[in-house]
């Protein structure tokens, strides 16, 4: 038995011992506050068992192991629907980037508090006019020449879990007179500071985990700056690539193929099981083939990591294909239910309900890189095709036609 197999077995045993207390079934019917509290308890249990920050350095509260062990653990964890979503952004990017840039001491305390679920960080990047085009953001950071403090004014949008967050990392425009990528600076901000207002945005399926966040004369000391003045875009890019490769679910958090087969076997039309219908067979079989390929790509990426090479396009392929695949299958599974297909249970999750899966799928095709951006990335970085025409290139930000 390899070390990794032993690690996987131990992790699996621990995870399975927690399913009754924290798993999908335990969460059913909880209020949002109760579910968050359950999540915090789960993170504490995980921290104490030594499964938090698996690939982080030990001095930051981590385990000092490789990304392979982390992926191995995550892969087992995602099967059970534990309440980890509140902390996924926090531990994924803001805390690791903070650890890289801030001096020792205070940051270790924050990291451990975040690993234990006691504190949550958010990432304040997107704005109403700056989504895929991140460098187009307009939130202003003006330095007070007397104190050196920065004063933030503006609006961020689509900020996941900002309503729960204690701290956030933020990119703001410190110099509108230079080309858009060069005039940005990166900070961390106390989300409870005066002048910060968080307003939840309700999404199409009724959930409200994203927010708009307003900054009105929010003062922050220069010590809260990460990286050089004007170097914010670089730090933002560094933040976005910290999670080089993450655990994947070929069903993209939708219902499984086994569920589709079971449903189509149970449902009938004109007295015949729907699974006997060639159209149903075709849709499910092709969806399965795609999911099988994603799983195979993931296994190969894990092996590459073990062999010491970085995965390449696997993450982009997975995000692009898996959500689209889920959207199509969910749409179809609603379709074959006939008139009953319109039913929707607001309490259901996207993992166990076709309608919820379908309603929430568009988010997955937009958040964290829209399909079109991923296609550009594949075309430009992997296939060497030309970049899109960018008329704002090299033009000072305040001279770009709005």
């Amino acid at each position, binding site marked *: 038995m390899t070390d990794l197999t032993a690690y996987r077995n131990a992790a699996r045993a621990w995870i399975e011992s927690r399913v009754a207390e924290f798993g999908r079934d335990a969460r059913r019917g909880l209020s949002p506050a109760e579910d968050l509290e359950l999540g915090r308890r789960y993170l504490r249990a995980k921290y104490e068992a030594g499964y938090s920050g698996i690939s982080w350095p030990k001095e930051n509260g981590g385990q000092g192991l490789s990304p392979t062990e982390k992926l191995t653990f995550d892969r087992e964890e995602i099967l059970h629907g534990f309440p980890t979503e509140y902390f996924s952004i926090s531990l994924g990017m803001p805390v690791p980037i903070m650890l890289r840039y801030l001096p020792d001491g205070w940051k270790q305390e924050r990291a451990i508090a975040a690993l234990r679920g006691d504190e949550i960080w958010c990432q304040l990047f997107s704005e109403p006019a700056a989504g895929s085009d991140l460098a187009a953001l307009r939130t202003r950071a003006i330095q007070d020449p007397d104190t050196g403090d920065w004063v933030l004014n503006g609006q961020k949008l689509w900020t996941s879990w900002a309503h729960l967050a204690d701290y956030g990392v933020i990119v703001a425009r410190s110099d509108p007179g230079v080309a858009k990528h060069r005039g940005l600076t990166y900070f961390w901000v106390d989300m409870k500071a005066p002048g910060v207002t968080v307003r939840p945005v309700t999404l199409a399926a009724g959930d409200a985990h994203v927010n708009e966040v307003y900054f009105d004369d929010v003062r922050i000391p220069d010590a809260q700056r990460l990286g050089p003045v004007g170097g914010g875009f670089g730090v933002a890019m560094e933040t976005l690539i910290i999670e080089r490769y993450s655990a994947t679910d070929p069903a993209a958090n939708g219902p499984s193929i086994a569920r589709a*087969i079971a449903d189509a076997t149970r449902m009938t039309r004109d007295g015949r099981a729907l699974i006997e219908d060639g159209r149903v067979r075709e849709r499910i079989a092709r969806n399965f083939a795609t999911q*099988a390929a994603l799983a195979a790509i993931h296994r190969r990426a894990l092996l590459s990591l073990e062999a010491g090479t970085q995965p390449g396009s696997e993450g982009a*392929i997975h995000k692009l294909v898996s959500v689209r695949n889920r959207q199509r299958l969910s749409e179809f599974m609603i379709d074959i239910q006939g008139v009953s297909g319109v039913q929707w249970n607001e309490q259901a999750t996207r993992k166990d309900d076709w309608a919820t899966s379908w309603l929430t799928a568009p988010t997955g095709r937009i958040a964290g890189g829209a399909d079109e951006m991923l296609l550009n990335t594949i*075309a430009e970085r992997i296939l*060497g095709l030309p970049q899109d025409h960018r008329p704002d290139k090299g033009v000072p930000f305040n001279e770009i036609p709005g």
Partner: protein
Amino acid sequence: MSVLFDEAQLQIADEAQRLLTAHYSGERLKTYLLERGTFDRELWALFGAQGWTAICYPEAFGGLDLGLLELGLIAEACGAAVTGVAALTSSFALGQALMHFGTDEQQSHWLPRLSAGSAIGAIAFAEGQDMLPGAPTLRIEGGRLSGMKPAVTAGGIADAVIVLAQSENGPVLALVDLAQPGVTRSLLDTFDNSRCTADLTFDDVEARELPGATDALAGAREILRLQAVIVSFEQVGGAQKMLTTARDYALTRRAFGQPIGAFQSVKHRIAEDYVLVELARANAIHAASRAGQSDFGLYAAAARISATEAYDGVSRDAVQVHGGIGVTWEADLHLHQRRARTLSVETGPLVFWEDDVITQLQGTAQ
């Protein structure tokens, strides 16, 4: 078997690509396209000399004792070069049938010759639209076979064929030596004439049942799945070649003052094609690594579906990206279009493999 290639495997792939590029061209295939039932003997001799025909056979029969992945890499190189040799996968399928279900005598007679490439094999299960007919029209009685099998790949050149035939006890698999009186080969005009496709008619000819295939339909399905994995690699090779060709052209060809690859309508089409190829490649490699395991059939079918979608889709798009030049006889794109559709149909159409996936998923769900 690992799904990361080792040094030896990478060497096999590189060598195959190098040799095929040196010995092969689209011009050569075009001469075969114009004539019904042709076969590239010179290229086949190269396969034998390189040991590519020997890959999946045990050393006792003159083979190299390697696996599906190694043969897959050769098939991938053949797919990229869109070679005119159907026998790579047809001989493989006959060899697998003999290794799985044949007698010692059948094996010792045929396997050394298949391994050396001096004999060519074929399989003939399908009849009309049925890939695996439950009640074949081909009749076998007392070791004598009569009837017809339509559109047998490499049927015009093969030395032996495995047929799915009806005996008094139900369907059986039987081996037929094609060098005997009573065998008639009718070469067919196809849109890919180099496959040497023929209707095979048997008039009271000698045939030997494969005693190991106690359930002939299940046995035939197993052989088809093994062949499908190798063909999937061939399809991936062709799709990858079409992807690269489209990409290169999009970088060279200019319109409205810039390379056409700068237009999102073109660059996104090519990026989508890259994804199709990567999905198909992942499934083919995974299926090859599952040979001999209980879930092999499921992943073989998945590989087949992804590979068919990829090769048809990418070659279709490559022609589109090329515009007018893409539809000419001179450009080699139509060679891939023809081959993509031929490979899709020969080894079982999508509907067959989709049914196979669903049936297996239902089995595992119970």
